[in-house]
């Protein structure tokens, strides 16, 4: 009796898997229009990055709502399957679940570069598309993946952007010739921090600035005294730094405690752009730079009326969901831009909604403008080369864009920093 029951159970399980597979493969065919188009979203919804992760997920949901209200993708409603990935291991498992069990064709992700690489490892094998709007590690688009598309800039380019700006604009403000300018790099050691720092170092050498120190650390560090004391000996004028939020705060605190704050602190995304950064260190943040993608652009940047409306609808709905935030976070804006652009502008151009059709549409579609303020123009590696990083600065607890000129909404303040040490 027990044996029969077990056989029955196995049969039922087997049957349900087969049915599941059938449904999945049926999606690509010329079935009725009511068949939903399944997409996945993988973000850290628990763990240390959960705050930004849940904001990204909310942004993707808003994008899907807007697209569905306008008739969906090629007449099919978009259906979201969400997944929580606090770390790369979970990202691998969840990507597998979305691909194998849920039959999604496109995945949006993933906030952290490590997670993005883990997901790409899974999606690439199964011919599923990953649209990345958070991880900026170079490796993601330098590894030969065919179905990974990144809307935002990559780490190396971002590091370089901060250095170029420093040489051209900051050095004159300090009255120091670029070749005499002493610069240092401190970065957290994941693929994200390393690729940004590599890009910065390359540019520093290219422009002939004076690199006096480069150090890296694990982002779970609890005491930065040793690091800061070492830095204090090198006496840099400008410090380039790549961090997550805790270590960014700890770095600024420790620099202050040892009276070792350099004249200019140039952060590169993540930690120094996080709303918590200025929220925690308060007025000391005034004048600290944070290179990142464009954010909270004034609506008149968007010439296209329809895009203007979409951006303002997104911001309004987002603020309703997160009433504590005075600004939409950069991560959420990017997550929205990635998912909205892909669903609204790329997929309609795809001849077939499979990996090949989507890839062709992603690479051949060129856009002058996305909701992030830059265009869409992918290289064969899947990297959006129209993406650019802005130079932003904290001013009165808000991120103000100071470069490039066409996007700027304020002038540079506090160079050198009033809290700079001796």
């Amino acid at each position, binding site marked *: 009796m027990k044996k029969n029951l077990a056989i029955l159970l196995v049969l039922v399980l087997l049957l349900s898997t087969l049915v599941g597979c059938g449904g999945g493969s049926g999606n690509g065919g010329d079935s009725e229009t009511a068949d939903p188009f399944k997409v996945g979203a993988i973000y850290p919804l628990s*763990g240390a990055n959960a705050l930004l992760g849940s904001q990204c997920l909310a942004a993707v949901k808003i994008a899907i709502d807007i697209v569905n209200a306008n008739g969906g993708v090629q007449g099919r409603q978009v259906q979201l399957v969400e997944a929580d990935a606090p770390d790369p291991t979970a990202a691998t498992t969840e990507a597998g679940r979305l691909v194998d069990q849920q039959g999604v064709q496109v995945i949006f992700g993933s906030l952290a570069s490590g997670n993005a690489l883990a997901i790409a490892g899974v999606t690439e094998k199964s011919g599923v598309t990953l649209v990345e709007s958070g991880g900026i590690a170079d490796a993601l688009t330098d590894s030969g993946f065919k179905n990974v598309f990144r809307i935002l800039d990559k780490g190396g380019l971002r590091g370089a952007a901060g250095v170029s700006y420093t040489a051209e604009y900051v050095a004159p403000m300090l009255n120091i010739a670029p070749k005499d300018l002493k610069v240092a790099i401190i970065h957290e050691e994941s693929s994200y921090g390393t690729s940004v720092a590599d890009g910065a170092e390359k540019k520093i050498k290219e422009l002939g600035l004076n690199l006096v120190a480069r150090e890296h650390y694990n982002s779970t*560090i609890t*005491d930065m005294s040793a690091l800061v004391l*070492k830095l204090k000996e090198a006496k840099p004028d400008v410090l380039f730094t790549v961090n997550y939020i805790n270590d960014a705060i700890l770095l600024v605190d420790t620099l*202050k405690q040892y009276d070792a704050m350099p004249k200019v602190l140039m952060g590169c995304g993540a930690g120094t752009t996080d709303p918590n950064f200025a929220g925690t260190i308060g007025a000391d943040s005034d004048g600290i730079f944070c290179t990142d993608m464009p954010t909270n652009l004034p609506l008149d940047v968007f010439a296209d009326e329809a895009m203007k409306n979409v951006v303002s609808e997104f911001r309004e709905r987002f603020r309703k969901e997160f009433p504590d935030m005075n600004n939409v976070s950069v991560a959420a804006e990017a997550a929205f831009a990635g998912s909205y652009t892909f669903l609204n502008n790329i997929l309609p151009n795809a001849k077939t909604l499979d990996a090949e059709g989507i890839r062709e549409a992603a690479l051949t579609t060129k856009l002058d403008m996305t909701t992030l303020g830059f265009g869409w123009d992918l290289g064969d590696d899947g990297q959006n080369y129209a993406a650019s990083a802005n130079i932003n600065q904290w001013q009165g607890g808000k991120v103000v864009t100071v470069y490039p000129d066409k996007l700027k909404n304020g002038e540079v303040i506090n160079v050198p920093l009033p809290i700079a040490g001796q």
Partner: protein
Amino acid sequence: MEQVLQVLISGILSGGIYALASVGLALIFGVVGLVNFAHGEYLMLAMYIAYWIYNFSGLDPYQSLIINLAVMAVIGYITFKVIMERVLDSDHSIQMLLTLALSMVLQNLALMFWKADYRNIRIDMTNDTMNLGFLTFNTPRVLAFLIAIGASVLLYLYLQKTFTGAAMRAISQNGKAAQLMGINIKRTYGLAFVIGTTLVGLAGLLISPIYPAYPTVGASFSTLAFIVVVLGGLSSVPGAIFGGLVIGVVESLAGYFAGPAYQQAAYFLLFILVLVFKPNGLFGRS
């Protein structure tokens, strides 16, 4: 030379906190025989308690010390009564799985109720420094160190000089014999567990002005506490104090001379060396 001395001192200051975060673990292991993987989560809870008290009443962590420790003691007692007491006679693997599960539950409850936001306590003192000649000390770190070492030494004296302390030592040496001598084992276990969680709570409270609270903050200190405790000889309280200081100094010196990336590598290396040459830890009994 000045810099090296400064680095050394900052290492000792961190070491004090590591020591305090670890003595509770050593005590619970020594007396109750329980490897508590949820140890770090009590640190997290204390940090949140300090944060919420600060947020609602404006009392800084030092002012709310007594309330915080009382709450931690109650939480420790409830955990012991409701959960730990049931598995005291079970296999070690069951106890470990249970504490591991408890740690996950606590982390995720924190995430559910308080979200993943980083909760910082910024008191006026957070960035205050004291100067002694050319040396600079961050005031909250000095306070944390002094209180931590004070509390650890008090615990040591308690174990050495009082009757219940002697009972705890007796149990850690030979539980059966201690029971035959009329020691109430369950009560002593409970007391040790409560003291252990209160002490790690104190550590959490002391770092709350310099480090943010978030649901997984316990995890990074938990790993450290385990290394410290193994280094010191598992159940030895003086061993844990010494181990904490050693880890703090090694971490700091490695950060200065080799670079911050090698801080963890350095103390893990030390950890392996100690295990190879002194498998019972620096203060362990064979």
